[in-house]
């Protein structure tokens, strides 16, 4: 089955590179969307590694492009959850707007703090969150 498929693809490469690229982007979008709708996250955890692995993006470009994609993905997911009446608009704005200041400060300090230590501490915090949710 697999080799037959491969042979057919070799004989008649109808699908252009551009179409293949778009299909791969759609796979990234679909996966990120499912995570976003299901877990309330942006999907960067999925988008960034896939852009690097499948599209040879550099780290910075992957992060930047992922952020722009997340604006659309999260807006769609928020709208979807909104139709179920699950979105607390006041809390959403109260956490989102001050977070901008936090991100700017965090990014600025990125080069000056031991990032490794912060990463490990943060990973530990996430483990604590997981434990709290599981028990």
């Amino acid at each position, binding site marked *: 089955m697999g080799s037959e498929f491969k042979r057919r693809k070799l004989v008649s490469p109808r699908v252009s590179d551009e179409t293949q690229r778009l299909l791969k982007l759609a796979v990234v979008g679909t996966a990120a969307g499912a995570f976003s709708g299901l877990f309330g996250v*942006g999907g960067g955890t999925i988008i960034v590694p896939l852009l690097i692995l499948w599209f040879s993006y550099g780290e910075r470009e992957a992060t930047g*492009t992922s952020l722009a994609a997340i604006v659309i993905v999260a807006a769609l997911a928020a709208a979807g959850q909104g139709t179920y009446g699950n979105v*607390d608009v006041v809390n959403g704005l*109260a956490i989102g707007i*001050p977070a901008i200041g936090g*991100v700017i*400060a965090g990014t600025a300090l990125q080069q000056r703090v031991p990032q490794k230590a912060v990463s490990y501490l*943060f990973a530990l915090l996430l483990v604590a969150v997981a434990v709290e949710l599981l028990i």
Partner: protein
Amino acid sequence: MDILLVILFGVAGGFVGGMVGVGGGILFVPALAIVLDEPQIEAEATSLLAIVIVAIAGTIRQRRYGNVRMGDAFAIGLTSVAGVALGVIVSNEVSQRTLEVGFAILALAIAAQLVHRASTRPDPAG
């Protein structure tokens, strides 16, 4: 009082996120669910609104550095519709407990990703 806590978590979440390069949701959801005691589904939905705001600000900054490929970003964003619909529907069908367990697994996966990244990459600040 709660609103002050929310604001504090926003700043703290953004700060740590900006520093280690993790998105907002993985922080906003537990802040809303664990600290403010919102039901898991509401915490996730509310987090999405906060993410939109933070991601817009982040995109504007990243664009200045020339790090955003808009065509690809639009392609990913617009093709996410089916996945989003599926995720939203499933999240509203399953039990609160299932959502919590799912989110816990995601948090552990991201923790592992962070540790892996930190241990394999040179540290700019030593």
